[in-house]
């Protein structure tokens, strides 16, 4: 209807600017008698009548776009209480429970109310770890919905061309998946782009070789020892040190062999280890990562002792037990009197971690010699032990008061260890851990120490949640939130089993 267009154009410019439009003849009657009005009022009267006429006669357009309905769910909807928990977590309270809760919902054959799926898919877009969980708990509707929004395209599986065109994280994820299924193919892909990628990405790619690492990777890893980037070289050394058959490790064994001699004890003297410090690194040794300043500025270990640690960390532990015919405990005992006893323990601890050697780990934990743990880029040795032994040691450890003050390194370490048991922690361990934790937060828990506690509380065996929620110090800052988390987790998981 062009008359309206005329009015709207005239209105834009102002009625003082020229000739004004006239009403279509069939509508003149509705505007009534306007002769007595001012020009502006008459204009607005007519425009108002036209506008109302247009509004009352508004016509929809048509669309024949095809609609593909989603198939019906075969799982059961969530119960009323569970929907409440879902809403709470979406709005940010106790969101740490989300991953476990989603997995449990899917396992129990429940599906989420569809109106919350957009918020959840958006969250999964940000948080990769939630993706499979949201998709499985979201039922068929989640896939159906995600297919309609490019933002949620991750639901269609990681796109195959993500390796070429994806973001940094996507490419690393593709590589990780490929390393699991076809490690050689993954290596070939990295080799093919190696020269053109920036250092940060090269290091990230190389780090993925830890998955299904094998001797076949050695030649390529060996070549990366000449890389321009220090970080890439550090990653390469770390990987090569885990390959006992590699030329790199052979070089390290050759360097290590002359440094340590086992002196058998007599009637009056104990067995001991005689340690010679390594020489200054030659260019080949430097290429192998032997850098006296590897631990940065520090006054604990001398330059040569640092080299000793680095060499020992790359030598198969078997070499020592076989060469000297002694078990780890005997070797550590023999090392005790050496001037370099702690350097030896440090190098061996690192090696034990790299080689996942439980026997050495146990001996080092028991042993009379302490490693310089501050220089170890590894997790705690305790994690290398079989679960039952680990639980027994940790229980004894905590019972002996090892956790100490909230926020201390030991306290965080113990909590991390506790969290490592996931849902399988023995009841005695949980009991000791909780008792110590309650005692250590008697004066409140500063918010910046909450993360390790929450990480553990989120992994407490579900069966022990109801007892875990009791006995906490009342009215202490930060503690109520912990109790709340335990209760919420308990309620949320329990509700999933109810209709």
């Amino acid at each position, binding site marked *: 209807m062009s008359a309206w267009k005329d*009015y*709207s154009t005239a*209105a*834009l*410019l*102002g*009625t*003082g*600017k020229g000739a004004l439009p006239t009403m279509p003849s069939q509508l003149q009657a509705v505007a009534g008698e306007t002769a007595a009005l*001012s*020009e*502006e*009022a008459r204009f*607005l*009267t*007519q*425009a*108002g*009548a*036209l*506008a*109302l006429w*247009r*509004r*009352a*006669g*508004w*016509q*929809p*357009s*048509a*669309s*024949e*776009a095809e*609609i*593909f*309905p*989603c198939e019906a769910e075969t799982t059961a909807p969530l119960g*009323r*209480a569970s*929907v*409440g928990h879902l*809403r*709470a977590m979406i*709005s940010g*309270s106790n969101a740490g429970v989300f991953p476990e809760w989603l997995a449990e919902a899917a396992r129990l054959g429940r599906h989420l109310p*569809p*109106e*919350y*799926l*957009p*918020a959840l898919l958006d969250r999964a877009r940000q948080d990769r770890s939630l993706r499979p969980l949201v998709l499985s708990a979201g039922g068929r*509707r989640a896939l*159906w*919905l995600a297919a309609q*929004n490019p933002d949620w395209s991750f639901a269609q599986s990681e796109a195959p061309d993500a390796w070429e065109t994806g973001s940094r994280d996507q490419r690393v994820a593709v590589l990780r998946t490929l390393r699991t299924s076809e490690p050689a193919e993954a290596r070939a892909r990295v080799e093919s782009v190696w020269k053109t990628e920036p250092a940060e990405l090269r290091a990230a790619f190389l780090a993925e070789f830890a998955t299904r690492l094998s001797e076949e990777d050695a030649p390529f890893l060996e070549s990366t020892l000449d890389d321009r980037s220090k970080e890439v070289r550090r990653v390469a050394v770390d990987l090569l040190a885990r390959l006992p058959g590699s030329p790199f490790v052979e070089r390290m064994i050759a360097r290590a062999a002359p440094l340590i001699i086992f002196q058998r004890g007599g009637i009056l003297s104990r067995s001991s280890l005689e340690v010679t410090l390594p020489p200054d690194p030659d260019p080949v040794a430097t290429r192998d990562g032997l850098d006296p300043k590897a631990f940065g500025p520090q006054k604990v270990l001398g330059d040569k002792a640092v080299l000793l640690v680095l060499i020992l960390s790359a030598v198969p532990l078997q070499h020592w037990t076989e060469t000297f015919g002694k078990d780890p405990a005997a070797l550590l005992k023999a090392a005790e009197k050496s001037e370099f006893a702690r350097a030896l323990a440090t190098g061996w601890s690192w090696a034990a971690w790299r080689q996942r050697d439980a026997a050495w780990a146990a001996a080092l934990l028991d042993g009379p010699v302490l490693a310089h743990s501050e220089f170890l880029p590894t997790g705690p040795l305790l994690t290398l032990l079989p679960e039952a032994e680990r639980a027994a040691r940790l229980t004894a450890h905590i019972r002996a008061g090892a956790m100490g003050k909230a926020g201390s390194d030991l306290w965080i370490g113990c909590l991390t260890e506790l969290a490592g048991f996931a849902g399988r922690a023995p009841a005695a361990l949980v009991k000791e851990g909780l008792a110590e934790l309650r005692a250590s937060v008697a004066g409140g828990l500063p918010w910046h120490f909450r993360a390790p506690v929450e990480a553990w509380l989120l992994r407490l065996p579900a069966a022990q949640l109801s007892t875990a929620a009791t006995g906490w110090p009342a*009215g202490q800052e930060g503690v109520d939130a912990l109790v709340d988390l335990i*209760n919420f987790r308990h*309620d949320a998981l329990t*509700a999933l089993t109810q209709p």
Partner: protein
Amino acid sequence: MQILTTEQVLALAPDPASVKAGQGLANPGKWVSLGRSERSVWGECQGSGKDPYRTQADMNGPAFHCSCPSRKFPCKHGLGLLLLLAAKSGRVAEGAPPAWVEEWIAKRDASVEKKAAKAEAEAAPPDPETAAKREADRTKRAAKREDRVRAGLAELQTWLGDLTRQGLAHAKQQPAQFFDSMAARLIDAQAPGVARRVREWPGIFASGEGWADRALAEAGSLQWLLHGYQRLDALPEGMRASVRSAIGWTMTEQELATLESTRDRWQVLGQIVEDEEKLRVQRTWLVGEKSRKPALSLSFAAVNQPLDVSLIAGTTIDAEVVFHPSGAPLRALVRERHGEPVSLAEPVAHASFAEALAQTATLLSGDPWLERTPWVVRDCHPLRAGKAWLVRDAAGAVVPLARQFANAWPFLAASGGAPATVCGEWDGRSLFPLSIMAGGRFIALGGPLT
């Protein structure tokens, strides 16, 4: 007793912070005591103080009372209590209310009785002298207001004429102050309805493509309101009421009490809360099952103050409703209820947009100043069109969804590609959904989903 669902309880929250805090309290561990009776639910919640807070809700309403110092209403304790009841009714044992609950309930009943008695006293014929004086005062006040409104609207006519002469492109350049000061003068002139419309002009200018069309339509609508006021006596009764209410005259409860009410089973189909200057406005749309008439219940609240929480979207109530007089009666007061709300089963809906548009046209013919009309249409599908969204009816007709509607994806998700009944507000060019009924589930979409 009537147990509200979690969604219904959350709809009562005055703000998102209360939702979060309330959820934190929906946990039996937080409560020292808990109980419920046929009518009320109560609990003692340990707060930071020495004595626990005493929280109670009267499900006739629902109404809340709590001994905590919060100025929010309902407070987090009230929400937590009802959320707990919704999620774990088994943990709130039935029993005899303690004295502090009895007292409050008794006080509430007493105040209802007192109000009724007062209304009765006012309705009773006073002695002739007082009556004459009251009447004279009222007439004097009313005449004074008419004078003010007349002067204010005359000024508006001049302002509108100047604006039209200089053009909308020029008006768009004016600072918000230009419109606010005219609005303020209209407030002084006791014409708040017109004042509100004038204050919304900068919003129209900022509304994107087609703003000039909308601004002109609004100017034309105001012009017709000015005509309407001048010819008030010549207008039919309903239209006269519409003009007066668009200008800003309101009905008091006493005035409404004299009007006839409509009893019906009213479906509470949609609810939306909007922020106006220093004020929250809640619109609740009802449709009568027998009459098929739409009705709009409004509730106003200052920030942090309670909105009316008695109408819960997704329920049906048996109630007497009084419509404010209008050429197109929509605004209504829920006067008296019979029995308790029940879950909504099947919304009273139109079969097509064409039917909804026809109803809109009828309503506009009675009140051309209506800013929005309610639509309830079944068998609808949301459709994506680039960045915009459309909704299609069973006949294949499509209308745009409102630009500012944030829940289009949840709408699509909940429909799952199956036809859904949509309840929403039509503003003449787009539909803002307030709720849908999909797969037998009622889903409120008028506000944030969490």
